[in-house]
């Protein structure tokens, strides 16, 4: 049986653990977040050039929001001529948002995509980072952004066991990024 004294002691235990643990976590969080954010910015910059190697200049064009997250888009230039666009985007994955970059040419055809960060299941959903999956996007447009479980030439083949993650990348993040670029053009 649990008596009143036990209840009091259990409550006290929990309060102390929460308060001490919370304080410790907060201290580490405050000190590491700026560095983590800086790393992310540097990584994004490196990734931009990596998926648009033909460009010699990448300039920011504007901002947009997706899944309530601020994202940027860029114009890529070679010899001061526009050679394509880069869009940052997010997709709603199996656990949390998948953060990625899409490089498209001036006709709206995907050149490459690059997954920046995600928290999909190790061994299943993290297959979205693999070359065979991301490579499928090259040469396709927003009309092709549909996931199939069987091999497909025109669309995107899902990672087996990770259809949700595959859909999040294809039908959510990349498709919306392509639509965003198309819309931004109409405005110009």
């Amino acid at each position, binding site marked *: 049986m649990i008596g009143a004294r*036990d209840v009091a002691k259990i409550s006290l235990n929990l309060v102390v653990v929460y308060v001490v643990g919370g304080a410790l*976590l907060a201290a580490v*969080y405050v*000190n*590491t977040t700026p560095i983590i954010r800086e790393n992310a910015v540097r990584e994004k910059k490196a990734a931009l050039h990596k998926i648009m190697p033909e460009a010699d200049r990448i300039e920011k064009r504007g901002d947009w929001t997706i899944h309530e997250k601020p994202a940027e888009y860029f114009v890529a230039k070679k010899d001061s001529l526009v050679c394509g666009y880069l869009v940052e985007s997010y997709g709603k994955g199996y656990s949390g948002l998948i953060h990625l970059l899409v490089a498209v040419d001036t006709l709206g055809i995907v050149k490459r995509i690059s997954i920046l960060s995600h928290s999909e299941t190790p061994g299943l959903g993290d297959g979205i980072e693999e070359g065979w999956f991301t490579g499928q996007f090259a040469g396709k447009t927003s009309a092709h952004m549909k996931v199939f479980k069987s091999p497909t030439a025109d669309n995107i083949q899902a990672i087996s066991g990770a259809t949700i993650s595959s859909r999040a990348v294809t039908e959510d993040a990349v498709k919306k990024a392509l639509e965003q670029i198309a819309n931004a053009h109409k405005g110009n």
Partner: protein
Amino acid sequence: MTSAASKTGNWELVRRGIIDENTIFRLAISLCPAIAVTSTMRNGFLMGVAVLFVQVMVNVSISLMKGFIHPRIRLPIFMLVISGWVTITDMLMAALAPDAYRQMGLYIQLIVAFASILAGAEMFASKNSVVKSLFDGIGRGTGFLVALVIISAFRELLGKGAVLGVPVLGGARPLLIMVLPAGGFLSVGLLMALFNWADTRFLKKEKGR
């Protein structure tokens, strides 16, 4: 074994964690990470370091709290402490080793569920002094680290023909299976057998068991 722990020397505790009660090769627990992150030596080493850190911090924290925790919520409190330290490790690693974190960040959070950490807390730290728990944590953590480094070195050498990313096998074709999960099981099995063989051949004799 725990009842006599108060009389066991500190270095004996460390030795025990590395050899006699090695988490992977002896207790055969926490095999999931031992297979998941050991396709390259670098990842195996980093995971081992992260686990060593969490194990030591958890052991010390639990030992400090042992007289204070109500027995009925012992395990939930252990889990809270473990998840707190894992989150701290996760944030520190993301800030200080971003490249490594990119590759294995997903696995760091899984340390919360490692049987080896909870075993250290429940079987040792909750019954022994802070100093003993510290050394037990160092022993268990180092044992895990050593095991992961051995497994990952073995797999990287056979599966990628490299040591720490530097190719060493020349033109020989590496065995792809060794970097796949199946190769992880094969490696753990083979190394466990080797460990047992070495143990009966050399160590037991010495002790006259």
